[in-house]
């Protein structure tokens, strides 16, 4: 999952670097457009407006993860960790990928992808320490109880990011 997160970060940043080599002056207008879109989607994340979030409802098929433990873990983590093949619950994720594209910095894309992947896998690390199935369920329920608060915090962070980007571009 961590490797997949890093891979998606590198992919978007590398695509942005390729685009920047074709259109070197695009970074500022693209960043300004991203700031505007991020601000609108911050309103979505904080429940002021309802907007479509790019993504799909596909889930990893059960037969893909019915083999051995390690094989299943690699397939599940590898598929879910990319973040773009399965359900995208929050608008902040596509905005993050768009930012990695705008940054056009592959090393930065790798770092951000690793940070995303490690954080995305925390519930799995926690579940791996459980000895009994009931403990796994309990840990999962505890994580899910934090989801609404984290969604709000993510909306706060997205608003800050958008306000920073628009203001810093105006001041530069």
């Amino acid at each position, binding site marked *: 999952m961590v490797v997949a997160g890093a891979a998606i970060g590198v992919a978007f940043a590398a695509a942005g670097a390729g685009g920047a080599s074709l259109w070197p002056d695009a970074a500022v207008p693209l960043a300004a457009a991203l700031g505007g879109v991020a601000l609108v989607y911050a309103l979505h994340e904080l429940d002021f407006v309802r907007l479509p979030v790019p993504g799909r409802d596909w889930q990893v098929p059960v037969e893909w993860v019915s083999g051995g433990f390690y094989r299943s873990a690699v397939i599940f983590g590898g598929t879910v960790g990319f973040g773009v093949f399965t359900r995208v619950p929050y608008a902040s994720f596509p905005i993050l990928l768009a930012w990695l594209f705008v940054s056009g910095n592959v090393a930065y894309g790798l770092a951000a992808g690793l940070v995303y992947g490690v954080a995305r896998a925390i519930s799995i690390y926690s579940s791996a320490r459980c000895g009994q199935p009931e403990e796994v369920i309990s840990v999962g329920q505890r994580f899910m109880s*934090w989801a609404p608060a984290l969604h709000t915090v993510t909306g706060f962070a997205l608003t800050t990011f958008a306000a920073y980007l628009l203001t810093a571009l105006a001041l530069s």
Partner: protein
Amino acid sequence: MIQAPGLTAARHGVLLGAALLLGLGLAAATTGLSWQSGAGGLGLALAALVGLAQTCSA
């Protein structure tokens, strides 16, 4: 715990205003930095929060 919709909207409104001010303040306080550097730091924080939010959602 069930909250009144108006209360939630008011709380989110306060958060929205605070986040806007924070973003504006950070940009004003870091004019010596390139916009890419500042946005890069905030982007890393956003990456961590998005990952945490997603790990809690499923």
